[in-house]
């Protein structure tokens, strides 16, 4: 490879790596929102996934056990949300905020307890990039897309799977019906709240994997509130991606790039305070919402409590 494109390749590869946890969480949120549920506890699921992954991987020494623990932890938070928002029929926004608050508290408590008496915290070995045979050698595209840690490839697979389920199965049809017209769906015999619960819990589990990816493929440890709003950004990604699996892939990459850009500028030693780069993903999210909101249509029943 010539030296000229190397920085660009590095930047794009970083964008893909940083975008991966966002993509997992957004994939989960797409499921929930297509079923008509806006789930703000996705932030809590991610955070729980982070802690689950850190503890699971630390305790077993196996990152894949960490992944599994993150998956389970994310699902647990989402289940709590489903009980409160769907079955007790409360306001979804507030219920999601409450579950995220609870996750912050519970993860903080468990983390302190897990690390008490140990100065080192929960440091785990991070997953190295695993080049895909053949594909990784493609010029330019290879190092960007196919020399990544395994969770990135799995995220791509998950998105394809979600697309298949949503658009090519009866279950997907029922799920979308629940999100568009719950009453009509129910009249056709669809068990709306059951489907919504399933979508939310699976979605939370995927967000948990997103958190696990953040720990296992990027940070290598847990810190309180470490998700720092990534779950909320995932919600913006879903809007920007027009509630479509393919759309969220592009949107997640855009946010990955917005975060990766700060490393580029730091390397260039520009005289811009680093805090402005910290703001960038959030500002981009706002700008993106402005660009698409009004022109795209959310699922009609989104956020509406089903009685």
């Amino acid at each position, binding site marked *: 490879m010539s030296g000229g494109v190397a920085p660009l390749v590095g930047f794009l590869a970083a964008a893909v790596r940083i975008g991966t946890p966002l993509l997992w969480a957004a994939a989960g949120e797409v499921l929930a929102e297509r079923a008509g549920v806006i789930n703000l506890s996705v932030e809590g699921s991610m955070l729980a996934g982070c802690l689950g992954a850190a503890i699971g991987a630390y305790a077993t020494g196996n990152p894949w056990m960490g992944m599994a623990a993150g998956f389970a932890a994310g699902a647990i938070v989402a289940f709590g949300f489903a009980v409160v928002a769907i079955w007790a029929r409360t306001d979804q926004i507030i219920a999601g905020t409450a579950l995220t608050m609870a996750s912050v508290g519970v993860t903080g*408590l468990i983390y302190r307890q897990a690390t008490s008496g140990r100065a080192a915290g929960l440091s785990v070995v991070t997953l190295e990039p695993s080049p895909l045979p053949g594909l990784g050698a493609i010029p330019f595209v290879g190092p960007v897309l196919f020399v990544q840690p395994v969770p990135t490839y799995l995220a791509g697979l998950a998105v394809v799977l979600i697309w298949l389920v949503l658009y090519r199965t009866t279950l997907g049809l029922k799920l979308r019906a629940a999100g568009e017209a719950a009453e009509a769906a129910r009249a056709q015999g669809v068990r709306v709240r059951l489907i919504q619960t399933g979508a939310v819990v699976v979605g939370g589990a995927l967000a948990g994997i997103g958190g696990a990816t953040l720990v296992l493929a990027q940070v290598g440890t847990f810190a309180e509130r470490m998700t720092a709003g990534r779950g909320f950004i995932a919600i913006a990604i879903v809007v920007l991606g027009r509630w479509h699996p393919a759309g969220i892939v592009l949107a997640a990459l855009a946010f990955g790039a917005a975060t990766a850009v700060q490393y580029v500028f730091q390397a260039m030693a520009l005289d811009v305070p680093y805090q402005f780069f910290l703001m960038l993903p959030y500002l981009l999210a706002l700008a993106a919402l402005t660009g698409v909101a009004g022109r795209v249509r959310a699922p009609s029943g989104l956020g509406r409590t089903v009685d």
Partner: protein
Amino acid sequence: MSVLSRFRAPLVAAVLGLTVLALGLSALGYDAPAALAALGRGAFGSWYAFTSATLVRAVPLIVIGLGIAISFRAGALNIGAEGQFSAGAMAATAVGLFVGRWSGLVAVPAVLLAGAIGGATWVVVPVILRRRYRVQEVISTLLLNFVADALVSFMVQGPLQESKRIYPQSDPIAIAARLPLFPGTRLHLGFPLAVALAGFVAIVFSRTIWGFRLKAVGAAPRAAEVSGRMDVARTTTQALLWSGAFAGLAGALEVTGVTYALFLNLSPGYGFTAIAVALIARLDPVGILFAGLGFGALEAGAAGMQRDAGVPAVAVSVVQATIIVVALLAVARARLARPEAAA
């Protein structure tokens, strides 16, 4: 509603919240009785603890909670009070640093006004996005919290950093801009101000056309527009701006009454806790006063718990979450029982 039933749900919520905390702490191997005792001592252990910990922490919760009640009544879910609080604190600090030669009678109102304007300004973007681009204020206000965090970080390491340029904090604000304290305590003039504001908002809600309009718009926007000839967009805009102003004022009160300077992480999550305060009080201003005291006690107790029993203060967010959920369930049950009174 009788006095008893009015206080039943919050009391049930508080007891449940503390029970969940105790069970969780036991499950994790903490000494739960000792932790709860430390929590109680931290909040009510002495007159000094009550005034200087509980009441001091109740001030921002009450003031932000009143603002949240305004926006939630109008059906606008402002969950970015945390960022608006920071914006108010930044504005108040910026002004507070430059009023050294003014009389306190002018300096204090100027600084508080700056805070309120700062908070309202932080909502301007969500308001524009909502009105012009139909972006949900839930997401925009939430995202701006993180922008505010980064901006505070920039301010205390940049334009507002102390003149010694060592720590990420501002210089102390002018003495003239500081709120008077009650003798023998750390309780500042913000507390009576918060009580007065609660009374004022209660009157606005129950006795003014604007208060009625808020409720009508929040309960049934279409009906308000069609039959009541109300400008729904205008009303929600006003509600959002006022809620931001209240959160910004709370930030200014924190700077002028407690810290006297701008720091990183000035708020331990007051903006989110205040949502619980407003909800458990069912958006009723007088209820918010009492709920604010309750949650202030919880925050004060959390600090005591961390200090005396080694339980991280963040544990208290479990209690807060439980209380929000109980409040939601109470509202949902009331609605299911009386479907016609869905408002």
